């Protein structure tokens, strides 16, 4: 087990180096001179241009800029935002709980609907339900998030007036963050109407963000279930005279869930990518919206460090999933 772990961790190092190079290069490959872009409509005089170049370190050779950047990141210094002048890490810490909360509810939505739907489709294989579910899943998987979000807003918030249009909580609630998770904070304050407001604000963005994972989970559950249903031990269970419900829930599902758990873990990347669009549409103050804002502001420091931080999280989650998988399934460790 230890060897397996060390192996996995060793793999993280080259990935990390690759990510720092990507984040660093990506920002520098964007068209346009960062100093001129920052200067805006007025432009800058040549003397001021040189001054600014030096101030931001763009006058150094590219390898030296990279070495400097890696050195800073290694010591936990992710730089200071060009526009707000606040440390990037501090902004990230403030905003990340919002993204986490949204992703959590999106995942709950995806699992609560996706897993039962997948099971049902597998059990009723070939039926009209199975066919239409798999069709819908394909549509869900290909759904452009931006369009889907706006459509839901216009219908549910605009036309029906059931849900709030955007934001995290009703503006009448003014809760100083304790944990940064709006639902938990409103419970800690004992404000139930605030909790209700926070939950109602979560409905649409969680659906939008959860749509793609939902489709993936439903399809994965179905195929895993189909595989397991054909196994000998399921046939044995049936032969023993157990009820269909018991065979499915106890014998088949437990085994089918192993690949599903992995799939869920791997959806973290999808969630963070989806958060960029979802948060922008729903004015959700998380890291996705923060990245988009920073790209528009040409805040290269935030974009570069934000990319790195998000990549680190995805890597960490993948590592945890790998480890968990080994714990659940002992055969992996030997491999």
């Amino acid at each position, binding site marked *: 087990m230890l060897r397996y772990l060390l192996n996995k961790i060793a793999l993280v190092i080259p990935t990390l180096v690759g990510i720092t190079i990507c984040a660093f290069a990506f920002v520098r490959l964007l068209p346009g001179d960062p100093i001129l872009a920052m200067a805006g409509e007025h432009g800058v005089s040549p003397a*001021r241009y040189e001054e600014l170049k030096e101030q931001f370190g763009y006058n150094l050779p590219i390898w030296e800029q990279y070495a400097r950047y890696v050195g800073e990141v290694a010591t936990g210094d992710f730089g200071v935002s060009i526009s707000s002048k606040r440390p990037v890490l501090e902004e990230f810490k403030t905003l990340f709980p919002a993204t986490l909360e949204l992703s959590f509810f999106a995942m709950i939505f995806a699992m609560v609907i996706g897993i039962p739907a997948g099971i049902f489709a597998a059990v009723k294989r070939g039926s009209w339900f199975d066919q239409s579910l798999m069709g819908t899943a394909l549509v869900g998987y290909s759904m452009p998030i931006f369009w889907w979000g706006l459509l839901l807003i216009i219908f549910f918030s605009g036309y029906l007036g059931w849900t709030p249009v955007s934001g995290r909580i009703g503006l009448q609630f003014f809760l100083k963050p304790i944990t940064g998770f709006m639902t938990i904070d409103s419970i800690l304050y004992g404000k139930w109407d605030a909790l209700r407001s926070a939950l109602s604000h979560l409905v649409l963005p969680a659906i939008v963000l959860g749509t793609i994972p939902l489709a993936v989970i439903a399809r994965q559950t179905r195929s895993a279930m189909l595989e397991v249903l054909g196994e000998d031990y399921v046939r044995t269970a049936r032969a023993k005279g157990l009820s269909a419900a018991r065979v499915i829930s106890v014998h088949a599902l437990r085994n089918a869930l192993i690949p599903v758990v992995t799939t869920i873990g791997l959806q973290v990347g999808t969630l963070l990518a989806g958060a960029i669009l979802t948060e922008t549409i729903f004015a959700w103050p998380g890291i996705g919206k923060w990245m988009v804002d920073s790209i528009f502001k040409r805040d290269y420091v935030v974009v570069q460090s934000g990319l790195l931080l998000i990549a680190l999280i995805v890597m960490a989650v993948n590592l945890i999933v790998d480890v968990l998988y080994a714990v659940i399934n002992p055969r992996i460790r030997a491999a």
Partner: protein
Amino acid sequence: MTKTMTFAAALLAASVLGGMANAKTLVYCSEASPANFDPGTTTGGNDFDASSRTVYSRLVEFKHGGTEIEPGLADKWEISDDGLVYTFHLHPGVKFQTTDYFKPTRDLNADDVVFSFDRQFNKQNPWNGDKYLPNLTWDYYTGMDMPKYVAKWEKVDDLTVKLTLTEPNAPMLANLGMDFASIVSKEYADQLEKSGKMADFSTKPIGTGPFQFVDYQLDSVIRYAANPDYFKGKEKIDDLVFAITPDATARTQKVLAGECDVAPYPNPADLATIKANKDVTLLDQAGLNIGYMSYNTTIPPLDKPEVRHALNQAIDREALIKALFQDAGATPAQNLIPPTMWSWNKDVKFDSYDPEAAKKVLADAGLKEIQLWASDRVRPYNPNFQRAAELIQADWAKVGVKAEIVNYEWTKYRAEGKKKDRPGAFQVGWTGDNGDPDNFFATLFACSAIGVSNYSSWCDKDFEDLIQKAKKTSDQGERTKLYQQAQVIFQKQAPAFLLAHSQVYAVVRNNVSGFKMDPLGIHRFDGVDKSE
């Protein structure tokens, strides 16, 4: 223990603030998060809406909804005959805001005014550099050429400040109404410097403006309360809330659903829905901008005004504007400055579409080929340079001129375009800063701007004399006459094809009164009221 204390304090704050729920609250759905709350250090319109126009005031102010200057913190001012010395007399008894993080012990005085500017250029001032915030650039102060024109700021007595210039510059007064010229509290700055919390100056602002800062939840909500000591009288709204909503369609939906009262910049595709709704009003105005196309007036045959006129006449401007701006619409430009700016000459009309006449002149001049420049960037005054280039290319083809479209990335585009000997027609535009005509005429077409921002390399003696004289005259009536004459010359000489001033919109709920569109593109909430 500490946790319990924090929790109890938070609970207390929540219950106190919860009591404010019945007060009159106006919610503004803003388009982006402010970078910070120190208007000297920021450049975006949304930054200014959230800081300078709410929390701060200036020596002079722009008239609400206009570009004229009116008294602000200075009740009156004198300008010396040589135009070099400005003496401002401050309104007595102006109080800085009292909040839970700052309690002023004295009223506003000349020290605050001198400090507000000194920190922006004096490298010895501890607030000028890294000690305050990293990588400060003071973009607007340098962008408006303040270092060139300002000789010194002096305190005469507590309520009198003297500004000495290096040369006469009438637009200086308009500069002082701009956001970067907001007056900050020296007492507050000193206090933060002493306690080693200088960065708080940009996150917990203190000013003399109509609203005071209460709280900001990063990227989400900004809260303000009416300043009870506001020197022009307490506002009618008790609480002002900025709900940061970047998506234009979501912003509109929020106004329609009653979740916010005012929202700027709706999506053009939603304009019809907004107009059809009886609970909201769509406000619009020509923006303080101009989209145009500069001809290099030094390279034959473009050096002849009749050739430039003919090129203008060959373009079907109405169709072009429709194709570019679509549902959003735009005001066809008659002059370089928009009709909302003082001195706009209503008698000047831009060349009308006449391809037949154009064809003849161009054939006589022997103009067969021309370069037509386009870039990739979306600008408020021109949403699509490339599409514009293609349409103009087609129009010119009809009159026998073959246009070759030249493309560059935006920063390189402007660097190449401003070169004195750049050939052909160059699409560009401008968004005004301070509502002063000088900010358009001199910035874009003065002889000294050739190689900088005079993309036509156009230097006309009569025009130059008029705009330089207007720059040095402090009497606005006199300046208006001079600029109106300058517009007549501009029309005759046609150094550029004038496209349009883009339309700017805002959606407002009908129970809101007193909200006005502002030609400077700012969103102000002083004087705004709301009925239930």
